Each structure stands twice: as C-alpha cells, then as structure tokens.
C-alpha cells in the first residue's frame, strides 16, 4: 500500500493506492478532475526526498507527497 499526500493548498485527503511505480500514480492522478489544475505545478517527493523521474519504483509503505508552488518568508 502506497500513501499519497497532498500538501499546502491542495485540499484533498490522503489516498491509499496499490501501485508499483510513479508512472502508475501519474495515470491515476491524471484521471482525477480535482487535481488537473495542480499536476503541472507540483513537485513530487518519495519518503520526503524530491524525485525527478517517473521510473521510480515504489514499495509497500512508501509515502508520496505532492508539493504545489511554494512561497516562504
């Protein structure tokens, strides 16, 4: 089971998914109308580390986070 969390202004509860890699996650999220405006501007972290490729394998217990545009300070 993979946990997907949506940070900051994305008002969406965590999802629990049975998937093996980020490619599969991309397909699931692209079909979610609520997320369409966010995907283009979101960075992705796996277990709190930013990832740069969809060819990233996932294992049971992994946490994927979506980070929308930031503005600290």
């Amino acid at each position: 089971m993979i946990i997907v969390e949506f940070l900051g202004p994305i008002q969406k509860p965590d999802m629990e998914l049975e998937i093996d890699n980020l490619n599969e996650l991309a397909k699931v999220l692209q079909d979610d109308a609520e997320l369409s405006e966010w995907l283009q501007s979101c960075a992705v972290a796996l277990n709190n580390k930013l990832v740069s490729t969809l060819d990233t394998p996932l294992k049971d217990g992994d946490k994927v986070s979506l980070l929308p545009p930031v503005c600290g300070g």
Partner: protein
Amino acid sequence: MLSIYNGSLDVPKILKDWYEEEATSNYGAYIPFIGTVRSEDGIDGLSFDIYDPILETWFKNWEEKAHQKGAIVKMAHSRGDVMLHESSYIASVFSPKRRVALELIDEFVEDFKASAPIWKYDLKDGKRIYAKDRSTAIKGSGLLAKGENS
C-alpha cells in the same frame, strides 16, 4: 539551527539568542535577514503552512553547504497567522569573514524562496487565500502531469 514558531517571531529575542550562542565562536560576521509582513492589497496579514520533514532535509543540505565554507546558518519561520508589521522569517549566516556571509545569505534566501516547502496565504476579509501568483513551482515540478511521461 532551524526553529519553527506558532505565530509571529519575537525578532529582538531571536537575534539576541543567536548572537549570544555564537558570541565566542570566533565568527567575524553575523548577517541576519528579517522578513516583515507589509501592508499591501488590503491584507490583514499572512498565514503559513509548513511541511516539516522536507524543510528539515532542505535545511540540513544548507547546513552542510555552509559548513564547507566555515560558516553556519540559522533560520526561524512562523507557522499559522502573522499580522501586518510582524515578522514571519529570519535567516542568518555566521562566518569568519564578511564576504562568505554576504554571499551565502543571498544564495540561502533565494533558494529558500524557490524550494522550501512553505505555503503562503493572504488573510483578507476573514478568508485565507493561497498566494498562488507569488508562489514558485519547485524545480522539477510537473512530473505527474500529462505529457511528462510519454
């Protein structure tokens, strides 16, 4: 050192504490940057969400980068609401000589703006509105969007 506070920052206390912590560390330069909430566009204040685990990783990388130059970085940030003319952010660099600190504070604050997992909201008319237009997509964003994986 990374400190997160609920609400606005007590600027004099934080600056004094940091000064005293390093008073005998033999740093020749202490350069703080203090961010203050300004009155503009009719806002009553700002509000912040923070994602601590990734912020801590981001900050740790900067501690290592500073260490390689013989410097240290300290940062304080607010979570939740901060009203007009209060402070939500302080970053500081201590280094043996001024040049390293001057350059590092610039790089550090710019990277903070572009990468630190903190989200800003305007407080206006009793609402909390995401400051989308002033926000920056983190490098590498869009990975999960259509067309990125084809």
